[in-house]
C-alpha cells in the first residue's frame, strides 16, 4: 500500500482531477501530440514561444491520473522557461521517474512527487508522455510521439 500511496500522492490526484492550463492555446506557435495507442492516453501540448521563452503553455486530452497530473504540473513548471531550460528539466524529470537519477533530479521542486513512479516501471510511459510531446513541439516535429 505504501508504494501505491507514493505513486498516487494527493498532489498528483488533485492535478489529475483539476488539471492546470488545460486548454488549447489560440496563439500557439508550437504544438505536438503525444499518443500511446496501447493504453489510449492522448494529449496535445500547445506552446507559445516568444523571444526564445515559453510565454504560454497549455494541454488537452485524456489519460490516466499519472499522465494527466504530469502534463498539468509540467505546464506549471515550464511557463517562462527557455527551450534549453525546458530540455534540462525534461532530462531531470526523466531521471527521476526512471530511477536513473544521479542526484540532478533533486531540484525539481514540486515535480519531485513523481519519484514514486520509479517503483512502477510500466507507468514511466504515462509520466513522460506529455514531456515527450513538449519536446517534439519545441523541435517542430509533426508526427505524434509515443512512449510505448
Amino acid at each position, binding site marked *: 500500500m505504501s508504494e*501505491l500511496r507514493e505513486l498516487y500522492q494527493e498532489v498528483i490526484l488533485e492535478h489529475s482531477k483539476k488539471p492546470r492550463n488545460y486548454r488549447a492555446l489560440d496563439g500557439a506557435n508550437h504544438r505536438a501530440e503525444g499518443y500511446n495507442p496501447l493504453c489510449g492516453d492522448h494529449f496535445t501540448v500547445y506552446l507559445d514561444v516568444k523571444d526564445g521563452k515559453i510565454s504560454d503553455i497549455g494541454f488537452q486530452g485524456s489519460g490516466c491520473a499519472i499522465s494527466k497530473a504530469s502534463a498539468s504540473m509540467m505546464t506549471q513548471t515550464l511557463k517562462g522557461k527557455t527551450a534549453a531550460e525546458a530540455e534540462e528539466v525534461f532530462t531531470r524529470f526523466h531521471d527521476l521517474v526512471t530511477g536513473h537519477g544521479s542526484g540532478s533530479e533533486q531540484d525539481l521542486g514540486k515535480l519531485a512527487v513523481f519519484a514514486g513512479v520509479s517503483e512502477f516501471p510500466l*507507468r514511466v510511459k504515462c509520466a513522460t508522455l506529455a514531456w515527450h510531446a513538449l519536446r517534439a513541439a519545441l523541435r517542430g516535429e509533426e508526427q505524434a510521439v509515443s512512449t510505448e
Partner: protein
Amino acid sequence: MSTVAKTPHEIHVAPAFDVQKVRKDFPVLDQKVHGKPLVYLDNAATTQKPLAVMEAIENYYRHDNSNIHRGVHALSERATEAYEAVRVAAQKFLNAADSKEIIFVRGTTEGINLVAQTYGRKNVGPGDEVLITALEHHSNIVPWQLLCEEKGAKLRVAPINDRGELRLEEFEKLLGPKTKIVAVGHLSNALGTINPVREIVRMAHARNIPVLVDGAQAAPRMPVDVQSLDCDFYAISGHKMYGPTGIGVLYGKTRLLEAMPPYQGGGDMIASVTFDKTIYNRLPYKFEAGTPNIADTIGLGAAIEYLNGLGMEQIEAHEADLLTYATSKVGAIPGVQLIGTAHEKAGVLSFVMEDIHPHDIGTILDREGIAVRTGHHCAQPVMQRFNIPATARASFGLYNTRGEVDALAAGIRKVREVMG
C-alpha cells in the same frame, strides 16, 4: 478386460467439475504477486498452461523430435503420427466433417489472414464488399482492410446496440449482391458478447455468401460444432485454450479449401516441383508450407485432451457461474459501470469507473495480486462505440473461483480508496 466396467471417462461423462483440483494442474497459479496470492483474470489475453501441455512438449523434444512427413526412420514416424493425431483431435474438438479440413496455422490472426489472402484475393474484386461487425478484434478487421485496399473493395461494418449486441436486422440489410464474404467473432474479447453465429450464417448463406468465424475466445469457453454452425471457416488460437503460443487451427469446408490458391509456397505444400510447374499437395498440406510448429501442435493436442477430460459443457457452466457472480458483485460497486451487457455473454467483464482511468485501476489491482487487462483490448472501434478510451477487463478461465471474484471486488473498492 471385457468384464471390466467402463469408466465414466470412457462413456464420455465428464466427472464433476472440481475447481480446486483443476487449479493444481496449473503450476503458475501457485504464486504470490506483490505479496498477495495471484488472481489471474487476464484469460482473454492468454490462458495459463496445464502440466499436461508442458510435459507433452518436453516429451516430444526429449524422445521424438524429428521432422515430419519426410523421413522413413522411427523418430520421424513417431513425430508424424503425433502431429497428425492432433489434427484428428482438433477435427473432433470442432466437430469438423473431415480431418483434412483442419489447417495448422500460428493462431487465429494467421488463420484469418490466410482466408483473406487466398479466398479473399481470388473472390473479392473492385466494388465488392466484405462485411464484419462493430465487435471485431483488430485481427478480424485489418486483414480485410488490407484486402479491400488492394482490390478496391469496401469494408462494411454491422452496428451494435448499447448492450454491445449485434443489431441483426441491420446486419441483414448490409448483406447484398456485392458482399463476397462475412467475417464475425463468435465471442467478443472486449465485451464478452456471443454473436448469433448460426443466424448470421443462415442469413449469409441464403445469399450464397461464405462466413468466417473468429473463434479465438469461444473455443476455450463453450462446445463448438462447426457443422452445426454451418460456418465456412473457423479460426482458433492454441494459447487462448490452455495450449502453447504460436499454434492455432483454421477450419475450412473442403469445397472452399480445394478451390482456394495456396497461402505460402515451400516444402510440404507441394506434390511435385519442376521449374516449369509445381503441383500443389492435397488438403490440408496445400496450406502448410515449410516445417510446421510440430512441438506446439503436440502441445495443442494435449490441451484439447485436457479440455475434453474436463468437458466443455462443464467448463462453460463453471464460467457462466463466475460471470453471473462477478456481474452482480462488481456491478454493485458504486461508481462502476459495466461495458457490454449482452443477454448472451461469456467469460468477460469489462468495466469503467467514473473519473478513474483504467490504467490506474490496473496498477492498483496489480498491487493486490490481481491481473486484469486495461486498454482498448485490440478493439478500438468497440471503445469508440462506447465513447471511452479504454476499459478494465477481467476475463475468466476454467481455474478461476468465486473467491477470486471476491478478491477482484475488494480490489476495485481499494481502487476507489486510493484514488479518492
